[in-house]
């Protein structure tokens, strides 16, 4: 447990030495949400419909990119191998990353949601805390997918190319652009298999239903299960021995 905490502190310290990345992580979603609000200047209903979905999309994009590059660096600079000769287990290592990135995602979600609700006129019927929790679960999903991407890339050029491959299909099929109910049988089946579909369903529940609706909690559980699954699968790629 102390090794997990030490790792989380270490990851956060690395971020502290990179204030530009932190500013981008916290600031860009807020800026995009504002832009979104003004693009839909005369269609407030559309903003109300898509705004909450964006709140859970941002952490996926951010954490996928940050974690895929961070873990690729661990693999390529020799620090991972160095860690493998110390008593830390790969689960403690990933736990540390998970903890650090969850905190970062919570900060990001706090900025975006307070701006959206207080200044941009977005309204949520449901619990804001649950939206933020959902965003944190999506951040863990981003970590898991980023970890997997880092296993199949040898350079930072390659790893960012996994973004369109792993993330964009989910954006197309999650119900943000076209409601999932209107998709054909095949697309609908694929959509049902992708975790982000549940994140968007969940946030939609929270937009229109009071408090902590059962539907949203179910979706949150599914997203968390996918996140844990992706991280566990990724852990298998952190082998002690290499060529």
């Amino acid at each position, binding site marked *: 447990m*102390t*090794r997990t905490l*030490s*790792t989380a*502190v*270490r990851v956060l*310290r*690395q971020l502290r*030495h*990179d204030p530009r990345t932190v500013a981008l992580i916290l600031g860009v979603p807020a800026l995009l949400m504002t832009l979104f609000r003004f693009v839909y200047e005369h269609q407030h209903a559309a903003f109300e419909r898509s705004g909450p979905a964006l709140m859970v999309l941002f952490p996926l994009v951010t954490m996928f990119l940050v974690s895929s590059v961070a873990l690729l660096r661990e693999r390529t*600079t*020799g*620090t991972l*191998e*160095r*860690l*493998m*000769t*110390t*008593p*830390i*287990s790969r689960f403690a290592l990933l736990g540390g990353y998970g903890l650090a990135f969850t905190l970062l995602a919570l900060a990001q979600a706090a900025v975006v949601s307070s701006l959206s609700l207080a200044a941009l006129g977005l309204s949520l019927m449901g619990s804001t805390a649950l939206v933020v929790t959902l965003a944190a679960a999506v951040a863990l999903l981003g970590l898991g997918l980023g970890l997997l991407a880092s296993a199949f890339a040898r350079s930072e050029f390659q790893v960012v190319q996994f973004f369109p491959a792993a993330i964009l299909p989910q954006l197309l099929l999650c119900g943000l652009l076209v409601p999932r109910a209107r998709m054909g049988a095949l697309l609908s089946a694929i959509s049902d298999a992708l975790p982000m579909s549940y994140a968007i369903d969940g946030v939609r529940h929270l937009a229109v239903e009071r408090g902590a609706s059962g539907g949203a909690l179910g979706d949150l559980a599914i997203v968390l299960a996918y996140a844990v699954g992706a991280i566990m699968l990724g852990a298998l790629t952190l*082998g*002690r*021995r*290499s*060529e």
Partner: protein
Amino acid sequence: MSAARAPAISVRDLRVRRGGREVLHGLTFELGTGLVAGLIGPSGGGKTTLMRALVGVQRSARGELRVLGMAPGSSELRRRLGYGTQSQACYADLTVRENLRYFGALVGARREQAEELLEQVDLRDAAGQLARSLSGGQRSRLSLATALLGEPELLVLDEPTVGLDPLLRERLWRMFRGIVERGATLLVSSHVMEEAARCQEVLLLRDGSLLAHATPSELMRATGAGDLDAAFLALVAERA
């Protein structure tokens, strides 16, 4: 004196394949505890591969390996072993002190030890500097310091003195002898023959085979050579 105790390292018929070809061809040797052993030989001869096999991160290492009586990579062994990599693995975006604190926390080192090591490897003035901004020599000292955290029983150090000035190299060797005096065992690699003279035992590794395992004076006596460089050449000629 220490010969009666169990060996620190025991290797039998170690073979490693990398990229489809065999790079270590059946090494067999034993190292006692409480000594500095030098793993000496030219670059590309398999020194790093052997060290990686001993610390348990080398894939497809076949043969019998016991390190402190345990299988390489086992969790108990990882608590008792320190590994200083040649690639100077540290976090470029952390300061020197933060790197030491993190690796120290992983092995459960005393908190003051990071500060003591900063002094010993002469990095006190660079403690607040990001590792990325260090020179090559400073980075290798940081890598060495991280391996010393937690006072391990066995230290496996890959080229720890490469690129250092003679004064600092002298100081590190004094430190190594101090570590041995408190009962630990060191395996230190180098491609510089003259470093072999500072070790109690020398393993000469070339093209993935052991040319010799002896004390420096035995090496010179056996080959009739005047210095270790000449002894090495004589051994290579003998094999050819």
